Each structure stands twice: as structure tokens, then as C-alpha cells.
């Protein structure tokens, strides 16, 4: 669900095909019948934006038909935990959870906590400054809430207590019946029940099932909760930490996993350490206090942090100066890319560096991004070809429409040609958390340079310029360790030396670290990313290991390196039962070897090697020592998987079906239509259509094709790929074509509240209309690869969609929005904005 794996991850899909050939049932739940649907044993069509209703229905089915994996649920999840008595569900409050503050538009999460304490969140979810709760100085994870030896204070192992998570879950999803699912999603009751049965069968000691998702789930105003619903199902069915189980995120870029691990994201530092926040933390002590979990592996937070500061600032970071904490930059609640673009429009962002991205085509409401770029003082674009984000000032649709005039645009633009992957050394982290090193094959030509080169030399020049500065603001840049060796005529920095710093060393001896358990909080180790620690263990580039598949077992532990500690399957302690025995011979993976007194198996056990299954933490235990031997989820403060999330989410402890920002329908469950906590940015450049507007009656969804890659910079420029999909098109059903007079092979103009684009018409049964809430709704499919440049050009689908974000991760809702469609090409020149404006007026 939420992915089109055969089209977008074709080579990964070989494994799905093998599963099918071995008799697995493969369902594809999607608005469109895609190349993936064609390969699956079953396809269920649903309306874009209705997945939580669907998955919630599955949860309800599992609970209602007693199909959960009892032993797993009782031991490995927080099902037995009792929740605060003040907690109220969306069922009680008609679409809101308790704690909603309508003025701030945010939740106070204090009532979502475990009764009698506050649990601590997991990785990377603590940047958001929600209000201090229960008198805590920090809202980022109460350490003093009292996780006594990692066990929640109140539990009911029988799962009967009305406030235990299990019962709350039951109550929350009770109305998600097959009939409601069918009515909300547009599928049939029979199909849905068949699906539920199949998924329930993929559970238990002998069997597992897996979910694959991609941006079809994340790109919604409730995106995180989509995934959360799947985690609830997988927890109930016992499908996490086990071979053949899991929820597999199919990431779309070579190192998109790496770019969150070693983030180029505003809110975190490498290894998901939270960025300091302007309001939340006063000094180093409170930052430490707020982020160090007393129990679980986040208990070692200080080691991770200090080692990072040592990697960044070397001898300048000392215990005496709190590792430079008071000089560190702070963030606000949202400094994300969309927020930055809006700030550009407002003129507060002056300079922008784009490296290997193309917001002028790839970001939603890309028109807004082009207008924003035109407001900059200066812009640096680094790419292998001149992309639309570099050329917007002379060939964007806004130049054509007269909304922008080249001579009026004051932006100074630098285009710097980049080196391709074959022209540099470096590592990508793939969707399985595997760091794979790739070696340089040829020298880059002309002015082409790697980004490593660019940022290294940029930093070097800036450091030179500020070397004599007395300004306090320049303390950090002066202290920055920036001494990587270079090689070849162009003085390319040595990528491996950077990776060595990432992996970590002892400061005094320079000895390479074995892994994150070697990190110290006293400044004696440096490590650029704690979860990557050990990737250069023993001075060997572990990520460059290329032992052929035929020389090892299926886990292939000696191909490249997985974080953390080369673990291929996270939380794999859960592949054994509470006693440490494999759930079954067929599904054995990691187990307790009682004779040797250690965990062993096919993979690196994701558990302390010698912690026996029966281990009960002493009362004074801290960090990982406080996690019991039968609790596999060691990053969580209580060692369990969370069915109910007391902490770390902005929009609710349980997933709830909300309609998209723009939707033709009311919420079938609550009078609260959309996620109340979603981020909206209503402004002239980003207007929203009113819910149910008749001017924009159709549901549009954007997607990729096998033959192209995202905004097209890497494929519209390649002849062999361009010829395979040479034009922007839209997919419509024969019924919609008839209704609107569209002609197969002709042109259509698709318009939203933002703008209008044109596309060739592909009439196909693969995007059928649906019956939702007793009404027929049409969907329109829009690939988003095209722009004004390249061997094939076309209008950008992302011009149509809007900016409304998920509150947890600030991801935009591009998978479901409202549009209208008419035959023919779109108006040209100034007529285009007039056309859009008139429609907007008609919509009111």
C-alpha cells in the first residue's frame, strides 16, 4: 500500500515476485491499477487519502475476530499498559483527542501518558517544542516520570482493564467496520474481508507478513499516522523483528535514508540527535536532561552527543565549555524546506544553495517555489544538468505568463556543474539501512566537482575569511575541524577520511571505534554519527565490503555494512519467543544459546549479547540495563513496541481517519473533517480549495513512472529514458472522459486552486471511478516528472498541488488533492493566471 513497487523499485520487486511464485498472496491496495497491481495476486482499489480507514478496519477485524498473536502482543508491545485516566479518545471527543488547544492549534499530550509516569520517546521525534507538561522543565521526554527499571507502573497482563492500551485500541477502532471501510474507501466489503483474512493468516509462529509502503503513505497531512496504523497491525500480528515481517519503507533516492541518518534536515543532527531549540532548552544541562532517557539505549545520549561535538570541534569542545553548547545554533518549531520557501517569498531568506534537487519541479506547489527563488539575492545550484531551478529566471511558466519578468528578477544565480556518482568516492545508505561504498571510476571533466569538493572548499574559504574574526558568532566556524586530506589535481577531499570521522575514533590514539557501545561521554572519543559508529571498524572500510552473494548465506552480512552494528533486521530479538527460542524452525533468525549464554543467529542480535531472556532489571538500572530480557524494542524506554504512542507524536497517540486537506467528502467518522493538527499555509500563492468545491470535483494523485526519476533531472536528460515516456500525460477513466469530453490521445487542461497545467490524455480502465459515501468519485492520475527543460518537456504536475503538511515530519500532501479537468490545451501567456483566477472566483 502507498507504494508502486514494481514501477519504482523494479529490482527490489524481484523478491516480491519470488514470494508470489512460492505461493504468497500479494495485495496491492491503490487508487490505480499499476504495473504493481498487474503483478500482484490481488488488487483492491481505494480512494487516495483513505488508507487509515482501510487499515483501521484491519485493526478492528483482528481485534474483533481474535486474530492477534497473543504471546507477542502481551510480551513485546505496550498492550497491557494502563493509560492516564484523563485520556479521552476521538470516539469521545468527535475527532479530537484530549488535550487539544484550539488557540494554539496543538495538543497538550499530558493525558496521553502511561498512568503514573511519562514514557520517553524514540529517536528523532523530540525536536518539536510542545508545551511543558506536568511541571517538567522540558517537554522532550520526561525522565523523571518514573520508568522504574524500564517497566510501566501499571499493567494488566490480562488485557481487560478498560484503560489498558489494548482496550483503548479496541474502542478506538470499533467503528471501522468492513461496511464503513467500503463506504469510505470505495472498495467492496468482500474484497476487504478477503484481505483481512489473508493478512491474519500471515501471522503466528510459522508465518509472517510484510507491508511495503512509500510516499503514497507519507505524503499526506496524516502521513505518519498512516504508517502508525500499519505498525499497529504488525504488532498485533507479531510481524516486527522477524524474517519475512516488518513494514518496509521503499525510499525513492539513492541515499535518502543516509540523508536522514546523517541529516541534511533542519531538526536533527547525525544519528537523530535533536537540534537545540530556541525556547525549549536553556543550557547544556537541561538539554542533556531532556534528551537522555533513563532507560533504553537513549540512556547513552550524552556519549553520542559529546562524541559528535568532538568530531565537529575537536579540542575546542571541552567539558569546561559544555562542549560549546552555548554557541550552538537553535531552531524554531518549523524551519523546514516549505517554511524556508515561504520565508523566501517574504524576503527574509536571501541566499540559497541547492545541491542535487529541483524544487521548481519536484516540490508541491512548485509555482510558489519558482516565485520564491525569484525573490532571493543569490542562489547556487549544483547539478549535472541545468535544471529548472537554475533556469527559472528565463524559462519558467511564470515568465511565459508575464507574472515574472527576467529583467526584474534580482537573483544572482551560480550554476556549478556537479560530478556524477561514477566520478567520486562515497557511500549511499539504501532503503535497508545498508551503507554501500561506491568507488570513483573516472575523473570529473571541466568544472564538474563532487559536492564533497564544493562544501569542503567552500568551508575552507569561509574559514580563511573569518580566521581573524573576533565576533562571537564566528566561534564555531573557527573551532570547526576541517582538515580532510585531498588528492588528485583538483584537490578532491578524501571521502574515506570523512567516513572515518563518521565512524569514530579515540581522540588520543586515533584508534578506530568498534561501534556505538564504545562511545564515551568524557570527550575521549569522537564520532560523526553514533548509529554509523563502527562502519570503519579496524580501519577497514566496512561499507566497501563486496563479498559475493554466492559466498554467504541469505542474510549476506558481509556485503556492505548496515547500521547499527551491521544489523540487517532491527529488533530481531523479537524473532525469538519470550524464552529466547525461535518462534518456529521455519522462521528462526536470532535466538538465545543457553549453553554459551549468548544471543546468536543468522544476524547480529539486536540485543545485548549476554542478556538472558529471563533478565529482570534491578531497581536502580539505567539505560539498556533497565530493559528486561523479554523486551526486544531496546530503543524504547520500556523496551516494547508501542501500539499506543504516549509520546512523540503531534497529532494523536492512535491513528485516526481524517480526510485530506482538499477532499470532496466529509469524514465518515467524525465531524472533524481533516487532521486538526496539520500545518496549513493559506496565502495568495498557496490557496486551498474549499472542501467539496464543485469547481474542483475530482481527486488527483501524483506519482512516478518506472522510466523517470522524480523531477526528471536525471532522466529527462537521458535519450534512452526520454523515448520511453516522452510526454506528460494524465490518466482518466473512460467514464470521466465521456463525462468531460476528453479524447484519448488528445489534450486536457487540469486545474486546481493554484494553477492549471496541460497533459496528454490517456484514457484507461486502470483508474476506475469509486463509490464513496453513496456518490461516484473520479480520480485523475498525474505523473510529476516533467518541466520546461530536458529532451522531453511538459507541464509540472506539482504546479497543481498545495502546501499543507503533516505536523510530525512536515511532509506535504501531494497524494490527494482536488482538481477539475477540461479538454484542450491550457491558456497561454497572461490568459493562464486569468483562467485560474476566474475558476477560483467561481469556487468562491
Amino acid at each position: 500500500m502507498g507504494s508502486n513497487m514494481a514501477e519504482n523499485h523494479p529490482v527490489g520487486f524481484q523478491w516480491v515476485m519470488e514470494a508470489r511464485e512460492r505461493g504468497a498472496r500479494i495485495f496491492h491496495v491503490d487508487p490505480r491499477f499499476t504495473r504493481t497491481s498487474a503483478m500482484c495476486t490481488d488488487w483492491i482499489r481505494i480512494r487516495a487519502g483513505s488508507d487509515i480507514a482501510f487499515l483501521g478496519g484491519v485493526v478492528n477485524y483482528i481485534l474483533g475476530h481474535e486474530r492477534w498473536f497473543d504471546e507477542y502482543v502481551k510480551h513485546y508491545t505496550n498492550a497491557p499498559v494502563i493509560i492516564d485516566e484523563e485520556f479521552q479518545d476521538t470516539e469521545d471527543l468527535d475527532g479530537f483527542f484530549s488535550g487539544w488547544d484550539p488557540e494554539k492549534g496543538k495538543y497538550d499530550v499530558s493525558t496521553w501518558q502511561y498512568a503514573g509516569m511519562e514514557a520517553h520517546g524514540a529517536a528523532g521525534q523530540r525536536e518539536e517544542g510542545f508545551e511543558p507538561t506536568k511541571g517538567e522543565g522540558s517537554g522532550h521526554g520526561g525522565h523523571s516520570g518514573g520508568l522504574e527499571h524500564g517497566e510501566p507502573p501499571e499493567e494488566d497482563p490480562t488485557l481487560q482493564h478498560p484503560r489498558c492500551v489494548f482496550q483503548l485500541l479496541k474502542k478506538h477502532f470499533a467503528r471501522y467496520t468492513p461496511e464503513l471501510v467500503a463506504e469510505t474507501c470505495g472498495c467492496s466489503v468482500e474484497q476487504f474481508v478477503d484481505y483481512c483474512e489473508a493478512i491474519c493468516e500471515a501471522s503466528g509462529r510459522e508465518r509472517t507478513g510484510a507491508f511495503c509502503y512509500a510516499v503514497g503513505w507519507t505524503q499526506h497531512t496524516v502521513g505518519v499516522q498512516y504508517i502508525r496504523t500499519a505498525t499497529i497491525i504488525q504488532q498485533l500480528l507479531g510481524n516486527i523483528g522477524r524474517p519475512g515481517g516488518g513494514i518496509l519503507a521503499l525510499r525513492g533516492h539513492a541515499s535518502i535514508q543516509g540523508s536522514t541518518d546523517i541529516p541534511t534536515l533542519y531538526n536533527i543532527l547525525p544519528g537523530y540527535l535533536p537540534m537545540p531549540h530556541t525556547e525549549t532548552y536553556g543550557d547544556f544541562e537541561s538539554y542533556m536532561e531532556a534528551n537522555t532517557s533513563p532507560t533504553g539505549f537513549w540512556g547513552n545520549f550524552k556519549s553520542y552527543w559529546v562524541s559528535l561535538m568532538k568530531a565537529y570541534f575537536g579540542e575546542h569542545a571541552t567539558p569546561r565549555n559544555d562542549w560549546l553548547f552555548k554557541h550552538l545554533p537553535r531552531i524554531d518549531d518549523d524551519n523546514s524546506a516549505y517554511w524556508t520557501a515561504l520565508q523566501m517569498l517574504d524576503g527574509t531568506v536571501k541566499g540559497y544553495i541547492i545541491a542535487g534537487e529541483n524544487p521548481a519541479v519536484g516540490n508541491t506547489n512548485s509555482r510558489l517555489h519558482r516565485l520564491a527563488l525569484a525573490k532571493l539575492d543569490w542562489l547556487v545550484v549544483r547539478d549535472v544538468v541545468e535544471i529548472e531551478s537554475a533556469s527559472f529566471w528565463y524559462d519558467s511558466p511564470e515568465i511565459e505568463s508575464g507574472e515574472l519578468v527576467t529583467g526584474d528578477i534580482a537573483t544572482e544565480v551560480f550554476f556549478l556543474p556537479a560530478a556524477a556518482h561514477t566520478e567520486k568516492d562515497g557511500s549511499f545508505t539504501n532503503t535497508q539501512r545498508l551503507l554501500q561504498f561506491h568507488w570513483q571510476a573516472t575523473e570529473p571533466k571541466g568544472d564538474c566537482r563532487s559536492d564533497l569538493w564544493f562544501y569542503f572548499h567552500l568551508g575552507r574559504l569561509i574559514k580563511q575569511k573569518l580566521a581573524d574574526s573576533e565576533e562571537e558568532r564566528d566561534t564555531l566556524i573557527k573551532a570547526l575541524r576541517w582538515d580532510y586530506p585531498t588528492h588528485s589535481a583538483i584537490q578532491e577531499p578524501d571521502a574515506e577520511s570523512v567516513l572515518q570521522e563518521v565512524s569514530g575514533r579515540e581522540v588520543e590514539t586515533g584508534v578506530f571505534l568498534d561501534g556505538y557501545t564504545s562511545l564515551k561521554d568524557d570527550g575521549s572519543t569522537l564520532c560523526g554519527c553514533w548509529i554509523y559508529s563502527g562502519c570503519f571498524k579496524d580501519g577497514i572500510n566496512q561499507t566497501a565490503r563486496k563479498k559475493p552473494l554466492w559466498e554467504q548465506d541469505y542474510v549476506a552480512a558481509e556485503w556492505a555494512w548496515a547500521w547499527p552494528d551491521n544489523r540487517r533486521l532491527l529488533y530481531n530479538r523479537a524473532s525469538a519467543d519470550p524464552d529466547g527460542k525461535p518462534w518456529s524452525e521455519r522462521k528462526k533468525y536470532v535466538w538465545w544459546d543457553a549453553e554459551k549464554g549468548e544471543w546468536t543467529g543468522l544476524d547480529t542480535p539486536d540485543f545485548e549479547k549476554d542478556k538472558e531472556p529471563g533478565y529482570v532489571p534491578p531497581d536502580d538500572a539505567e539505560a539498556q540495563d533497565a530493559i528486561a530480557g523479554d523486551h526486544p524494542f531496546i530503543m524504547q524506554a520500556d523496551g516494547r513496541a508501542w501500539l499506543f504512542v504516549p509520546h512523540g507524536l503531534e497529532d494523536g497517540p492512535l491513528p485516526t481517519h481524517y480526510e485530506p486537506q482538499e477532499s470532496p467528502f466529509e469524514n465518515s467518522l467524525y465531524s472533524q473533517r481533516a487532521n486538526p493538527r496539520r500545518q496549513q499555509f493559506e496565502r495568495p500563492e498557496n490557496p486551498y480549495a474549499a472542501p467539496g468545491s464543485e469547481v474542483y470535483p475530482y481527486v488527483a494523485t501524483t506519482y512516478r513512472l518506472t522510466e523517470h526519476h522524480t523531477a526528471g533531472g536525471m532522466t529527462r536528460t537521458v535519450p534512452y529514458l526520454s523515448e520511453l515516456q516522452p510526454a506528460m500525460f494524465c490518466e482518466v477513466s473512460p467514464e470521466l472522459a465521456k463525462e468531460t469530453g476528453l479524447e484519448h490521445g488528445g489534450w486536457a487542461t487540469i486545474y486546481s486552486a493554484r494553477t492549471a497545467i496541460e497533459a496528454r490524455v490517456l484514457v484507461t480502465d486502470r483508474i476506475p471511478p469509486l463509490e464513496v459515501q453513496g456518490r461516484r468519485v473520479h480520480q485523475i492520475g498525474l505523473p510529476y516528472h516533467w518541466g520546461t527543460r530536458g529532451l522531453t518537456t511538459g507541464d509540472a504536475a506539482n504546479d497543481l498541488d498545495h502546501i499543507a503538511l503533516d505536523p510530525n515530519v512536515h511532509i506535504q500532501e501531494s497524494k490527494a488533492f482536488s482538481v477539475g479537468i477540461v479538454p484542450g490545451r491550457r491558456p497561454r501567456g497572461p490568459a493562464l493566471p486569468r483562467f485560474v483566477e476566474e475558476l477560483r472566483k467561481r469556487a468562491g
Partner: protein
Amino acid sequence: MLDSYGTEAQERVGFFTDTSVCIGCKACEVACKEWNLVPEDGLVWTGESYDNTSELGANTWRHVAFVEQNEPLHGDREVDALRWLMSSDVCKHCTHAACLDVCPTGSLFRTEFGTVVVQEDICNGCGYCVPACPFGVIDKRHLPRRDAPALPLITKQEDGRVWKCTLCYDRLKGGHEPACAKACPTESIQFGPLDDLRERADERLAKLQAEDWNGARLYGRDPDDGVGGFGAFFLLLDEPEVYGLPPDPVVTTRDLPGMYRSAAIAAGAVVLGVVAAFVGGSR
């Protein structure tokens, strides 16, 4: 067939293209072009499902066909009964290959691997093979030529030669499998000794039939068919013509003895006719 190669002869190899696992990714098309340096073939959007390549030709040696049908993939289910047939077409490397038979220069030849290959250094672009092929595979390339013209006076600017799949003759010589088969993510394109492939195909068909797949059949597997069996054969899920393939192709040269006989008689008739014209006076 490969007797002339003596010790050089290799086991006959080919492709088995199993369309029941083809995901329509077109990796084969690109892999082929990348390896064989086949030129881009025009940026034309057809609206024919996801197929913008349209057909095999001089600049397309692998072509993935896309057919959307309102039928279930297996069984007789009626709800959302859609199927999307995808099939990667290629030169069949016929046992009895018309293109090879009719080639007047010996540019087309049977290799030591039993495959049929155009030798680009020999072909003079007479074009006879083009209409001879019962599958419409081989075609003449009309793009500007890449090599330097040899004889300026009678040289053409366009490439002018015929091109088609070589089953990666050069790769085979180096012991590598053809580029398309190597790239194929789902092993829809299988490469190997033809005898093994036929065995595999029979097993595969039996499995699909047992699983109640609609329309599953082998195409070109039978050595007794009109072209003596394909070197590159297929498992299809519908009639061949649905994929643009001829249902019962026959190598044209099978009828050549008869044609020569007719020609000989006709030649005799011409002589007789001329002689007859002199009956009644030679002036």
C-alpha cells in the same frame, strides 16, 4: 546446423521470455541500447498504454508490449477484473530464418551459437531481409551514418544498413549473457541453452495451468512449427496477435523449391513465347 563450425560450434542458446512475470519496466530495452549502442528512436507519445516504443525495428531490438484487458488474470473472478499484459519482444532467432536465407551478401549468418546475426561490416542495405521476416523484426536504419564514408561518389549519408538483435554476439563470445537477460529484474527474460529453456518453459506452463492462469501458452517453442522453432520463444497469456505477433509464422523459403520450379517453368514459357512470336514469320 552448426556442423560447419566443427570444434568451434557451441551449444545452441536462446531466450525464453516468460511474460507472466514481466513487470513492464523496459530495462531490457535500455540494457540492449546501452550495450549495443543502438540510437534513440524518436520521442513520440503514442497513448498506447505505456508503450511508446511501438515495435521492433532497426533502433529497437527489445520492445515491451503493453495490453490492458478487462479480464481476470486467473480464474473467472468478476470484481475488478483487469489485467495488464506486458511482454518483451525480440528477434526470434528462428531455426529456419528467412532473413538469413534471403540475405544475398552473407551479412546475415548463423553463428557458432546457433543465433542469427547481421554483420554490420558486410551488410550493404539491400533490404531483402526486411519483408522476408515473418515477424517484422529486422529493419533498415535511416539515421545519419556514424562511420566515415568510404567512396565519396556513391556514398549515402544515412546508415542504410539493417539491424536487429544479435543476441549480444560479442558478449556471448566473451562468455557473458546478453544484456537484456542480465538486466531483467524478474527473470522474465531467461537466457540459456535452448534445450534447457524448453524444459523450463514446459514446467512453467504446467504450473500456470495448474494455477488457473487464463490464456497461458507457449509460443515458438515447438521445433515443428513453420520456422522450425524459435531460438527466442515466449510464454504468452493470450493469442499471439494480441501482442502483435503472427499466430502461425512460416519461413518463406520453405516454399522456395516450388517457387524455383515455377520460375523455371515461367522462364521456359518466356522462351517458348518468344519462339512462338516467330511463328508466322520472322519479319
